[in-house]
């Protein structure tokens, strides 16, 4: 507890039950309360051309029908290349309802945003929203979340969840070119590696050198160990707080906090390895994008769920 009296702004935030669980930066851009709708969080899919009016189109991007054909013959296709044709799991408003306790509801009301996987080992599903900031300052995402495996087999299911994700696709505003600097694209991201091969791992990772933000490879944080609350029954939901901040002008991680533990990410950054080529390195059509994704990955042939009670997005002007 800080001994100095809170500022007027802090006092207002701490006395407002909508924000008292969060620590937003000076500009609150979004408060997505899932008791009032999905607020634009939708299923993720990568680019596909689908049209012919774009002369500089990205060569590795296939048409829809080319992608369908490829995926029919490649079950292991990367999620950031694979179009979501066929059966899919999509974000939805959940009342966290199960056979034994009925509806648990969200943390603050009747509903939470649920991100479900397919009942398939390796299934990885994201709720995605294309955000942005008009300022080149810090950008912060906060949420209260919990995660569970499907309870229909009455098993705890903790090791059925491979990983949780918070990923970003960040592109510079194009007026940075006036400073003589080419606009950049980078992918700050975090992954909670929960379990592998039936064993709990429970370590946080960051995106430092990958060339595919949703597929890694990921780097373990040196201080990344964290036993997140999962609870002792398949239908008992326990909520955790998460805050992640990065700097749009410095292309650096600023801070990362998860439910009581501060992790040392300051000054870390994402430098794609190998460097992104062509269109993937470019920011054409998307200046100022901060594409944000919350995701979950199944370790076994069982549905896994990530629940978000709310999301607060905030920024600084510099």
């Amino acid at each position, binding site marked *: 507890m800080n001994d100095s009296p809170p500022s007027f702004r802090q006092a207002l935030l701490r006395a407002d039950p909508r924000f008292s669980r969060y620590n937003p930066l000076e500009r609150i851009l979004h408060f997505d309360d899932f008791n009032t709708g999905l607020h634009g969080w939708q299923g993720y899919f990568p680019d596909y051309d689908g049209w012919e009016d774009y002369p500089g189109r990205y060569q590795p991007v296939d048409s829809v029908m080319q992608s369908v054909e490829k995926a029919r013959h490649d079950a292991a296709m990367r999620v950031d290349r694979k179009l979501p044709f066929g059966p899919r799991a*999509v974000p939805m408003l959940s009342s966290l*309802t199960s056979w034994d306790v009925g509806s648990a509801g969200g943390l603050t009301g009747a509903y939470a945003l649920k991100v479900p996987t397919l009942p398939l080992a390796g299934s990885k599903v994201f709720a995605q929203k294309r955000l942005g900031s008009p300022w080149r300052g810090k950008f912060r995402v906060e949420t209260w979340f919990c995660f569970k495996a499907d309870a229909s087999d009455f098993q705890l299911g903790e090791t059925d969840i491979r990983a949780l994700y918070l990923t970003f696709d960040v592109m510079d505003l194009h007026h940075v070119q006036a400073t003589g600097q080419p606009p950049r694209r980078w992918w700050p991201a975090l992954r909670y590696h929960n379990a592998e091969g039936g064993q709990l791992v429970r370590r946080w990772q960051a995106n430092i050198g990958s060339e595919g933000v949703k597929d890694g490879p990921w780097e373990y944080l040196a201080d990344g160990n964290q036993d997140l609350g999962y609870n002792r029954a398949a239908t008992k939901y326990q909520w955790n707080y998460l805050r992640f901040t990065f700097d749009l002008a410095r292309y650096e991680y600023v801070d990362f906090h998860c439910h009581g533990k501060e992790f040392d990410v300051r000054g870390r950054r994402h430098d794609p390895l190998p460097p992104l080529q062509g269109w993937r390195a470019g920011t054409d059509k998307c200046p100022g994008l901060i594409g944000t994704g919350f995701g979950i990955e199944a370790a076994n042939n069982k549905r896994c769920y990530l629940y978000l009670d709310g999301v607060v997005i905030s920024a600084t002007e510099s």
Partner: protein
Amino acid sequence: MKTIHTAPLEVLSTRSNGSFTTEPHEAGWADEALAVAYVREVAGPAPVLVLRAQISADGARWFDHPASPLHLRQPGGASLVLSHFGNWLRLAGEVSGGPPDGAAACVIDLYWVLKG
């Protein structure tokens, strides 16, 4: 103002003879649900897709909703109209009359269109 949400359950999905179910979907907030089915292509001697809405109290034990099932035999769109369905929804499909070699009998898109 009401909330409306369209959830894509299957897009460009190829189905051959046999049965399937869509992923469970929670829609307790909605007063009405339309299951919208588009058939893009059909193949085989007498292809037919029968779609039923199913409901559940817990997302694990499913049974048919009283709404009459859809019978889709040719390209086009159709919908199942549901008003009393509780929270959990899914679609159960049965494909028959497609190519006997197991090739796709139909290419379909399925959605929940939810409003409440």
